[in-house]
């Protein structure tokens, strides 16, 4: 029996099975639910670690299951898919710990953790998909499993946000499906292939391919929050903090951006996409989103809403890196997939801590909060400086490669976009830090909960601190083996330099 053929499937199942069991658990079975959650996360992490080691040493892991005549469900571990799977698995473990602490004592936890596990299974499925049809399947499953998490609070605002999310993402899914079917009629295959599988098509198909590209980018752009398809994301921030962390750093938006990366690299091929002339408009769209998101973030007083617009902006760095269509920019874009995840999840955890511990939801309420919650705000500070691209935090490495990639590709205008975005990042993050560290705190906080001598519960404090340190480590140890940067270089090498 070849175990390597089953490992990708086991990675998906490691969260799917516990999730299904959790649905059936009574609310009071806290310990069993937590054990199942954490055990699933740890098993997944171990399996992913095994595959990382194997792929690094040239082994292949692939699961193929018959789906329809001529169509298979394919799960395959390559460098690009493993980058996303590793990110999701590591952050899922951290988010699970956080969610256990965050939702302590709240209702409907079995439902929440059940969908939470389904959501991660779908994300891992998206990452490991070996062809477009498998991708599409998991992509839609992700949409459906995330909806209950967004509306979890059950308030009117949450329901409206959920409705908006469904409308946007189902519309996006339909566009993606249309593009996929059209592509299948032209090529007869949907298998993801390094450097794409379309360059053998004749020139007479080019107009159709341009339209297919537009359809797919529009479909994926909904989850990737590309302007003007981003409307659902700031609304969805009404969801509990662990869901926001999941949406913004681990699963949903990342699935959209990852889809764009896959379509450009493994469906069209970056050289062929550039030849078709579709990468230029994509770069401009990404640049517009970067600046637009930052400008909108500048005017938000709600902390999570400010972070949501920051996500809109930062995600497009990845798209920009892909659209610049060069090896160095690819490194910048792909590595930002991980870096943005680490920094953003730390920021959302911190926002959740402020809300849960002190009842702080607005930037204007954050005066002196650094004195009350120094560890949380230290993690927030690292995340914020990382987003600004300050060294030695991970964001600096991303901006460095994006900037160099732009210069290499002769697209100097990108430098201005990066500089403008950094300036705007500073403009909306530094006032928060100034308030938190240098303003006098109020006499009472909006809704303070006491945790003895600790600033908050351990389960809430450790995840932001750990993820902030990971963001710092990913920047400082960028040259170390197995760093996200090293892995991104491997991906770029395969895309651009292998015959």
């Amino acid at each position, binding site marked *: 029996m070849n175990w390597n053929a089953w490992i990708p499937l086991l990675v998906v199942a490691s969260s799917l099975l516990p999730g299904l069991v959790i649905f059936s658990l009574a609310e009071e079975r806290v310990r069993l639910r937590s054990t199942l959650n954490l055990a699933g996360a740890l098993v997944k992490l171990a399996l992913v670690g095994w595959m990382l080691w194997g792929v690094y040493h040239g082994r292949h892991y692939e699961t193929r299951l018959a789906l329809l005549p001529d169509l298979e469900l394919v799960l395959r571990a390559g460098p690009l898919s493993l980058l996303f799977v590793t990110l999701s698995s590591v952050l899922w473990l951290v988010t699970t710990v956080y969610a256990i602490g965050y939702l302590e004592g709240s209702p409907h936890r079995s439902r929440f953790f059940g969908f939470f596990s389904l959501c991660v299974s779908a994300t891992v499925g998206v990452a490991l998909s070996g062809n477009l049809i498998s991708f599409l399947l998991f992509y839609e499953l992700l949409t459906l499993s995330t909806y209950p998490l967004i509306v979890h609070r059950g308030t009117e605002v949450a329901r409206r946000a959920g409705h908006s999310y469904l409308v946007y993402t189902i519309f996006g899914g339909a566009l993606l499906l249309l593009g996929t079917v059209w592509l299948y009629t032209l090529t007869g295959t949907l298998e993801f292939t390094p450097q794409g599988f379309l360059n053998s098509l004749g020139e007479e198909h080019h107009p159709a391919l341009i339209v297919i590209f537009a359809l797919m980018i529009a479909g994926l752009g909904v989850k990737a929050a590309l302007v003007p398809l981003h409307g659902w994301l700031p609304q969805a921030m009404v969801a509990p903090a662990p869901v926001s962390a999941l949406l913004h750093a681990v699963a949903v938006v990342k699935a959209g951006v990852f889809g764009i990366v896959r379509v450009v690299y493994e469906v069209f091929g970056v050289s062929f996409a550039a030849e078709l002339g579709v990468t230029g408009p994509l770069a401009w769209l990404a640049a517009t989103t970067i600046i637009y998101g930052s400008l909108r973030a500048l005017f938000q007083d709600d902390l999570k809403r400010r972070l949501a617009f920051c996500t809109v902006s930062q995600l497009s760095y990845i798209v920009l890196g892909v659209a610049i269509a060069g090896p160095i920019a690819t490194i910048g874009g792909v590595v930002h997939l991980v870096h943005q995840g680490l920094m953003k999840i730390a920021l959302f955890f911190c926002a959740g801590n402020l809300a849960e511990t002190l009842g702080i939801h607005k930037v204007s309420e954050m005066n002196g909060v650094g004195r009350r919650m120094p560890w949380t705000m230290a993690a927030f500070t690292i995340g914020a400086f990382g987003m600004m*691209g*300050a060294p030695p935090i991970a964001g600096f490495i991303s901006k460095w490669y994006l*900037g160099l990639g732009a*210069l290499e590709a002769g697209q100097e205008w990108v430098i201005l976009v990066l*500089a403008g975005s*950094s*300036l705007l990042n500073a403009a909306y993050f530094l006032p928060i830090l100034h308030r938190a560290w240098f303003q006098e705190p109020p006499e009472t906080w909006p809704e303070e909960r006491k945790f003895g001598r600790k600033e908050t519960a351990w389960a809430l404090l450790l995840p932001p601190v750990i993820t902030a340190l990971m963001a710092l480590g990913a920047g*400082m140890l960028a040259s*170390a083996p197995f760093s996200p940067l090293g892995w991104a270089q491997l991906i770029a090498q395969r895309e651009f330099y292998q015959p």
Partner: protein
Amino acid sequence: MNEDIHSISLLIVMVWPLLLAIPAVRSRLPWPGHLAIMPAAVRVILPGDSSFELSWLFFGTEFAIDGEVRWILAMTVAVWLLAATAAKSSKSDPTYDRTTTFFLLTLAGNVGVVLATDLVGFFSFSTLMGYSFYGLMIHGGNAEVQRAGRLYLIFLIVADLVLFEALLLAASTTEDLRYKVVRQAMVGTSSTQFYLWMALVGFVFKAGIWPAQLWLSSAFKSVPFSRALLLGGVPVSMGLLGMVRWLPFGEHAFYVFGMVIQMIGVASILYGALRFFTNATMKMLPAWSIITVTGFFMATLGTGLVYPALWSQYEYLTHPFIASLGIFLAALTFTIGRLQDTRPHPAFASRKVEDLSLWVGKWIGAIRRSSKDRLFGLQSLWRGSWLKVKEQPQRILDWGKPAVLVGGWSAAITMFVLLGLMLAWLAR
């Protein structure tokens, strides 16, 4: 073995202040500020050059000490020891912990900047130094200090952005980002001019050189002297050091670029001197001195760019000059601060300044009268400013009160200097 010890000692110089910046690590240590700088002081005294490479840090980076760096490190030690001594806060002070953290982070950044051998290392530690210094500067300060901090922060952000662009241009030209290699590589490429201007603007902003002196003068005006004494030794000196390390001196003649730097230098000298004569509160004395002295330094740098051979001949003087400047300014600020603490109204100290101030005022008035028709636009601005100064002469000499020069007066002097620059340019 000996080399290993030297390398390890260099690592300790950098890591020790960072470790002490963590409150739990230093909680039982007395005088953490003094202790943090000790390894650096020992390394200055230890003979011999050494270096160590951290291949895993960033993209791989190296730190080193040689004869030139030793000057700057010695200055750093002196300035920080002085600052640690001047800091009055004790452990009972509620702001002690946070102030000490910012103090030690700034120190760690400063030491890293001094010891870095490549552009990425310099930039990274300069970022740590710059933002931590902001915290140190404004912590516990009043509204005026906060305003000065905001100005500093704006200049810092823009400087960092511009320097990042320069860094990218350098990295796209050469993979090896050590100073010497970059200086050689950034000559005669398509991006040379852009790189030069970006680096110049970045360091002019960072060092508070005219016309970006606004944050520096605001900081001197409002920040307590125990922190103000760091202004000359930390942002200003490190800005000048950055210019020396990043710009391609001695490699090629850059006539226009060099002349612009010379002009900036001359303008700084004029501006600093004029402000010295017209706004000579003792507290502001170091500010105008810095602007004047950095003006001389800039004029020299400009000359070095125009005449590379001349630079090669006198290059060895730059590091001792920067070191002397940092120490002199820190000592001056420290002395003035101490005097201010012990003698709240020393009218004697400003008497001479008052005479000069009036004399310069009359001189400017004469120019104003003689150029009434040609400089009609500037006339009302000068007159208004001068009347305000004449109406309140005693406030100029007041100790402890905020400095009084009105914004319009400052604008007039700047315009005057710009006019002079334009005339000099046309007369070429």
